[in-house]
């Protein structure tokens, strides 16, 4: 599921970055690599504040839609 759907406070791992090659490379360079651990700190109308491997990023909604993640535990998460 896209990162935008992750509930606040929940941890997850990145599965895939679905973006054009430029953006994909940039995100990878910033540390958004497959299996990195991500935690959602806060969310503001789809804009996210996230913690990736200990570094904090502010992320626009458009960008966050392109990052596919897998929640650490599915408990309490509605899929679909």
């Amino acid at each position: 599921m896209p990162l935008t759907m992750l509930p606040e406070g929940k941890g997850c791992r990145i599965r895939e970055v679905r973006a054009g090659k430029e953006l994909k490379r940039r995100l990878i360079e910033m540390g958004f690599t497959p299996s990195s651990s991500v935690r959602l700190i806060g969310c503001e109308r789809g804009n996210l504040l996230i913690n990736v491997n200990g570094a904090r990023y502010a992320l626009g909604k458009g960008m966050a839609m392109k990052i596919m993640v897998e929640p650490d535990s599915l408990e309490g998460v509605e899929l679909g």
Partner: protein
Amino acid sequence: MVENKIRVALTGNPNVGKTTVFNAITGSRQKVGNWPGVTVEKKTGIKEYGGRILEIVDLPGTYSLTAYSADEVVARDYILEEKPDVVIQVLDSTNLERNLYLTTQLLEIGTNLILALNMSDLAERKGEDVNIPVLEKLLGISLIRTTANEGKGINELLDEIILRSGSASSFPNKIEYNKKIEDEIRQLERILAEDEALMTRYPSRWLSIKLLEGDENAHSKLSSSNVQFKVNKFLSNLISEEYEAEMADKRYEFISRVLPQVSKGRVERMSSSDMIDKVLTSRYLGIPIFLALMWGMFELTFTFATPFMELIDMFFGSLAKIVAVNIDSPWLSSLLGDGIIAGVGSVMLFVPNIFILFFLLALLEDSGYLARAAFIMDRLMYSMGIQGKSFIPMLMGFGCSVPAVMATRTLEDRADRLITMMVTPFMSCGARMPVYVLLAGTFFGKQAGSVIFGIYVLGIIVAIVSAKLFRSIIFKGKPSSFIMELPPYHSPSAGNSFKYMMNQGSLYLKRVGTVIVGGVVVIWLLAYFPQGVEYGSAESYIGSLGKLIEPLVAPIGFDWKIAISLIFGFLAKEVVIGSLGTLYGTGADEGMLSSALVADPIFTPAVALGLMVFTLLYVPCIGAVAVIKKESGSWKWMLFAAAYSTAMAWIMAFVTVKIGNIIFA
């Protein structure tokens, strides 16, 4: 001996403390920012050490050597084209994985690399100690542990620079890509080898890798080469879509093989920064907290500055009396009294405000809070056609528009960048502060702090509304989605903020000494001559000039003195009050300019407010206009910025005065 000089480049991810290391080495006081893009141009410093001269260049932060934005191109081109003798990569010990990504690229270029493991005290506290000997062995390069803000490890770093300056790099563990890619790298290297000149400039393996990645900047290096055609033909036969991601993965794979051997895994938990962020950036509290902090800042500035202002006022008042009593020559007495003391004095009066405002801004920035403002403001800004990241140059505009316009380089998208550049000068810079303090202090008494706060907020609103206008008329489309790293919160250092304040404050004093003295002397000359007329009267040269342009601002309620001041304010906005001081020739009066303005019937509270609004919005100072020309690369945009802002100023001031006349009647 020319050989004596060692050229050293400092590079690293944003926010790892490059500028702190630079300052610790060179002893200079470059601004240490807590948001990305503070170093937008390389800065050079000189250090003598061990009988050698080190030329240290501080480069803008970058995550990789694939250049996206203008500031990253600066960093990459310096390393690639200037070939410094030694490159120091500053690493943040708390996020090694991502930092080492840049390391792998620096090694691929074959730079003579030293790693400075900065903020190691923080990492130790988090229990993430790094095994330095093992990491050194795996990478084949030296590693120095530094805590730059305390000056720890700097001498060791300098020793290492001297030790390594003569030697070539030796990276034993080159990153192996998969067989197919390696094969293609070799084929490309063979093609490139035909151009010998090219090969002396760039490492062939590196250039081949970049070409395979589809790096446009690398392609442009081939533009005048005879192998360009062959390379293009070779590349067009490949399906290269997936290459760069695959290659990036390989680099991370290399890192992930290295990391477990040198560092214990991190303990993931909610950090205090995360918790503070939850509150400060939350949906309902974010904007109110931001506004409250700004309001508090202006109130504090005003309260703390008042006693100092009274002292300065007394000083210039008595200086003027001494001149009036002791100098017989009427023209010299007028030049000193009416011209320099009145003009410069009215600007100097606001030095305490400037210093205090800079100090408070530096404290807020140092704490890491200001970087959050971009996130907080993004919701509002995005709907107005400007991305959240643009708020950072805009915030820098509270200090000075010149570096703020330069900071737009961190924006990747050209439309985003131009829009931000056009609206950044609406953020009220430090030079405009004296105008507000004088007028608000004179006409609004106890409410002065709130009035000034209101003017700053008006600047933000005009900037955002203008962005909306540009986005819907000139640059149709949506702002690009943004991503930016936020520094962790830490308690701000009063020492650093003090240094920054002194730095910025002395720049301000320098302006007073040069531009402003020059401006007021010219105004005095024009006000004193032709011989025989009353000083500063409508019959003097400046009076006739003023009368000529007065009709342009008369509808707002401004007279010729205000018109002249605004014209000279183009040099530097402080000159607006410097000129008023000179024109009113207030040198000998107690209370100086303030009381002269109150006595002049043209100055009503409404006109004072209108003049503040006009000063806020009209054409930015000559320095800012020049930097807009430079950064946009076009006269058209420069002229547009000047015309648009002046038109905006006229309209808003007109409306302000009309409404003011009703309210204050």
